[in-house]
């Protein structure tokens, strides 16, 4: 392996306080002031500016606690439609300079450094370019693998540009980074690694690969290569087909009302079907996850007679799951609907017992066309009528998961 300075090198771009920065692009009043972006229901801080971070506010902090720590902070409602505009502008700006760009998440990109370019100078150039073209501050990290690039970038925040492409220098950085800072290594895996004395990323990179494989399978082994500077995770310029599709999230004010909670299931089902139709997919199996207050979880699934994206078929299946998951008297906090065994690409295996679907198809097409013309959820299931408070706020109709094309949520 040795020291490889000739490339190819891989970079990571990360928007600094991205939601706040996006708000400041269109609203100069917010510049220089402590700003927090508030969640769907108006209760949690989902993003904060550097000024607000200095007051000790953390992401996910309830607003009543945040205003005590930062009484002069100004709070804005989240607007994912606008954040998508800014995110896509960032993507296009990076594409102007790099031959290969992966749209990883709403505020992160991976890219390859053009052959022959000095990585440090390219990092600084890219940072300045995004600022000039888009108006958001980003941090750029460059190294020999995407995992290293992201970790190097994290050490340079905010508004940093750092390239570390020599093994000895990489290991010096990795020595200071805990293994839990790597995406995919949570508490449980970290505890397993710790029993072998693996606590830092440097420990991980220096470990016996057979132990890594034994503890964390081939996924952990790929990470081992990445931390050693061997790029094994490719830059993906287009999103691969989904293996799982999901919609859901917090229901805002927790509720033990089965009518209201079921309305949320139907609301999320309509969003789920919209996503299925966008990707041309139909699930063969669906499942429902409900999280109650006090961290009680319930999960139920069922296989469909045949893969389908039909509202009536999926509604019936989710109703069955809901009945398995429902706990009377308990407050529901959030839910997720999942679809797996996804079929698509223009052909879906029909089943022997598919119910007639001419009418269902006609209704689905009419609904889609009306909503495309008049706005999302202009036509929706009557079973969502109990959520008029949610639908009356248009900002609730667009969430981060509705931004298409990115690799992760």
């Amino acid at each position, binding site marked *: 392996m040795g020291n490889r300075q000739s490339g190819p090198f891989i970079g990571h771009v990360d928007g600094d306080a991205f939601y706040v920065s996006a708000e400041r692009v269109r*609203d100069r*009043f*917010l*510049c*220089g*002031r402590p700003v927090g972006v*508030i969640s769907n*229901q*108006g*209760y949690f801080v989902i993003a904060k500016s550097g000024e607000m971070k200095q007051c000790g506010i953390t992401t996910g902090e309830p*607003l*009543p606690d945040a*205003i005590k720590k930062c*009484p*002069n*902070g*100004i*709070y*804005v*409602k989240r607007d994912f439609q606008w954040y998508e505009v800014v995110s896509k502008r960032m993507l296009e700006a990076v594409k102007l300079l790099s031959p290969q760009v992966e749209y990883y998440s709403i505020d992160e990109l991976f890219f390859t450094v053009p052959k022959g370019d000095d990585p440090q100078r390219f990092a600084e150039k890219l940072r300045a370019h995004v600022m000039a073209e888009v108006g958001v501050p980003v941090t750029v990290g460059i190294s020999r693998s995407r995992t290293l690039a992201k970790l190097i970038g994290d050490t340079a925040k905010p508004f940093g540009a750092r390239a570390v492409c020599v093994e000895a220098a990489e290991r010096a950085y990795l020595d200071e980074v805990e293994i839990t800072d790597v995406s995919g290594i949570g508490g449980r895996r970290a505890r397993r690694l710790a029993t072998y004395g693996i606590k830092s990323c440097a420990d991980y990179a220096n470990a016996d690969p057979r132990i890594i494989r034994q503890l964390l399978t081939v996924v952990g082994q790929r990470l081992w290569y990445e931390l050693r500077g061997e790029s094994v995770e490719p830059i993906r310029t287009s999103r691969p087909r989904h293996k799982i599709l999901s919609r859901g999230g917090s229901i*805002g*004010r927790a509720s033990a009302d089965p009518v209201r909670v079921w309305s949320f299931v139907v609301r999320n089902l309509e969003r789920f079907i919209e996503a299925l139709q966008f990707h041309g997919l139909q699930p063969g199996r669906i499942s429902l996850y409900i999280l109650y207050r006090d961290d009680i979880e319930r999960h139920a699934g069922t296989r469909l007679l045949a893969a389908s994206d039909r509202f009536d078929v999926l509604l019936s299946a989710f109703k069955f799951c809901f009945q398995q998951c429902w706990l009377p008297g308990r407050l529901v906090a959030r839910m997720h609907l999942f679809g797996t065994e996804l079929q698509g690409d223009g052909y879906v295996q029909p089943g022997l017992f598919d119910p007639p679907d001419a009418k269902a198809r006609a209704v689905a097409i009419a609904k889609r066309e009306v909503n495309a013309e008049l706005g999302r959820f202009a036509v929706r299931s009557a079973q969502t009528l109990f959520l008029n*408070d*949610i639908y*009356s*706020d*248009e*900002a609730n109709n667009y969430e981060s998961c509705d931004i298409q094309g990115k690799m992760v949520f």
Partner: protein
Amino acid sequence: MAEGVALSTQEVPSHLLEQPDIARRIFGEPGVREVRFWSNDRWPCLAVRHEGRFLLTRWGNRASNYSKLPRAGWVWKEDLRKQLWAGVETFPVTILANAGFESGVWYRVRRGIEGLLVNDERGKPVTYMLVEPASHYFRTMTRSNRMPALIGEVI
């Protein structure tokens, strides 16, 4: 708890910023200074745009010891439709604000707040802030059942 609004000093005529009663309301570091107007100030006032002009007016009539105008700082917007102000000459104005304050929370105001301007018995302008039932979002943020009638935006 006091309601309030904040207006960037860049939007206030500079000669007014030097007046003691306005200067004492200025808050913030250089570059991000704002004038804060509080409803429970000893001289509550609001900056409004009326017929194209910038005006500083009294905020409601809580503090007056002579006027018979409603003793409040705000008016339900629906009350205008009920003609509870019939017989009084009123003028719709824009209350100039970049941020509003309710129950400890500063929230962004992008285009101003609807206001109702009346002249009191001495011909002095008084502005009432128009309010409406709080949206679910605003109520969750501030725990308030009413919210300012924002111009051209929904929170």
